[in-house]
């Protein structure tokens, strides 16, 4: 009989108090070294980082951690969820990231976030630069004009939320991305709980307009890298460029043949852009 094949990823649950309510948050980790906390996109979960967690070139030098936000993946909603509408806010998202890093005693981690995760790193850079070694925003902008007006499509009884989320997100993946990772990315969207994707977009579209504040970011206190895929029409390269122009020292790169989900839709193409950034962060740490 063939030997079982195990990946080097370990999963665990950590208890966090968020908004004075107890939460049980699932995360996965692999590797040793500089902590690298990864933030998934809206309506998805930490599985988007499975390729990064399995990438020896990264885990040789970085302790990669990816949590499922409450309401997402294996992190349950808090008790009492059945009587409320989930809505992510800037403050709640920052508190979650800080609470996770504190609970795991992470010392000046790097945070890499995509989409809503990319947007929140802008707020981490503005408000908490001293807590982080470097920040990496994928598909990140202070503001991005919406591409459909009504997020209500994502949560109504006559349209299947998972099916429509997958069908909408399919367009944000580059045509060059391999079928296997394309469809795995969409599967994540098809699995979201009712109203959760919509609730995340409250932060992405309403509460997270940072145009008035990204100019306060001081990249001499914490380096900021912004990488955006050329096929992303939710957060376009132009949206990110406008943001980068307001932040002296921000490093902006357009990734070719990539859409809105770099680490998930085309891991091989994404690491060509990420590894040099991680090398630079590591060199600065020495």
């Amino acid at each position, binding site marked *: 009989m063939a030997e079982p094949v195990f990946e080097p990823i370990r999963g665990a649950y950590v208890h966090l108090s968020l908004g004075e309510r107890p939460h049980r948050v699932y995360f996965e980790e692999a590797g040793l070294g500089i902590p690298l906390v990864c933030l998934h996109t809206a309506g998805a979960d930490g599985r988007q980082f499975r390729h990064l967690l399995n990438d020896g070139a990264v885990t040789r030098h970085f302790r990669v951690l990816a949590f499922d936000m409450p309401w997402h993946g294996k992190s349950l909603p808090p008790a009492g969820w059945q009587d409320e509408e989930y809505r992510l806010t800037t403050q709640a998202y920052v508190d979650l990231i800080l609470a996770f890093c504190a609970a795991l005693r992470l010392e000046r981690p790097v945070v890499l976030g995509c989409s809503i995760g990319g947007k929140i790193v802008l707020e981490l850079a503005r408000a908490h630069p001293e807590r982080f070694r470097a920040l990496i925003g994928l598909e990140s902008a202070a503001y991005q004009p919406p591409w459909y007006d009504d997020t209500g499509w994502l949560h109504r009884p*006559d*349209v299947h939320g998972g*099916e429509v989320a997958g*069908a909408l997100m399919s367009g944000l993946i580059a045509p*060059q991305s391999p079928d296997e990772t394309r469809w795995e990315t969409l599967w994540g969207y098809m699995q979201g709980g009712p109203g959760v994707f919509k609730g995340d977009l409250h932060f992405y579209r309403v509460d997270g307009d940072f145009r008035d504040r990204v100019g306060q970011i001081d990249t001499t206190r914490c380096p900021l890298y912004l990488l955006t895929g050329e096929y992303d029409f939710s957060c376009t390269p132009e949206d990110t460029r406008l943001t980068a122009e307001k932040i002296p020292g921000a490093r902006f790169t357009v990734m070719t043949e990539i859409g809105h989900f770099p680490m998930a839709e085309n891991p091989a193409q994404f690491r060509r852009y990420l590894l040099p950034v991680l090398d630079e962060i590591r060199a600065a740490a020495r």
Partner: protein
Amino acid sequence: MSAASAHASILSLPDLVNGDADLVRRGRYLTATFLVEVGEREFLVRVVEGRVVAVEAGPFLMRSWTFALRASEEAWRRFWEPTPAPGYHDLFAMKKLGVARIEGDLIPLMANLRYVKDVVAAPRWKARG
């Protein structure tokens, strides 16, 4: 691709769709007529339980349809390229770019969105071979 071939792409939908059993299965709950505008030409695509039973070329004087997908001939031509450029790779990308419009009763469209997107993109898969 000329205007004639853009029109031919729309007219080829019955063959492209009905020959794909999985696509027909995914559309099995959709029975509707939708309008596709290619520049100045209009086409009515009649879907019955996932099968494209007819594509009728306009002009029309007074016809009913459930939803409409409108774009220039140039936009559709770029949309159907084997590897489309950014902005032309998806119906909603073209809408964001301002070269396509989506109108009408959107509930059947959104309830069957993967199916409808796959139907209109079918000529691309044919172009890819």
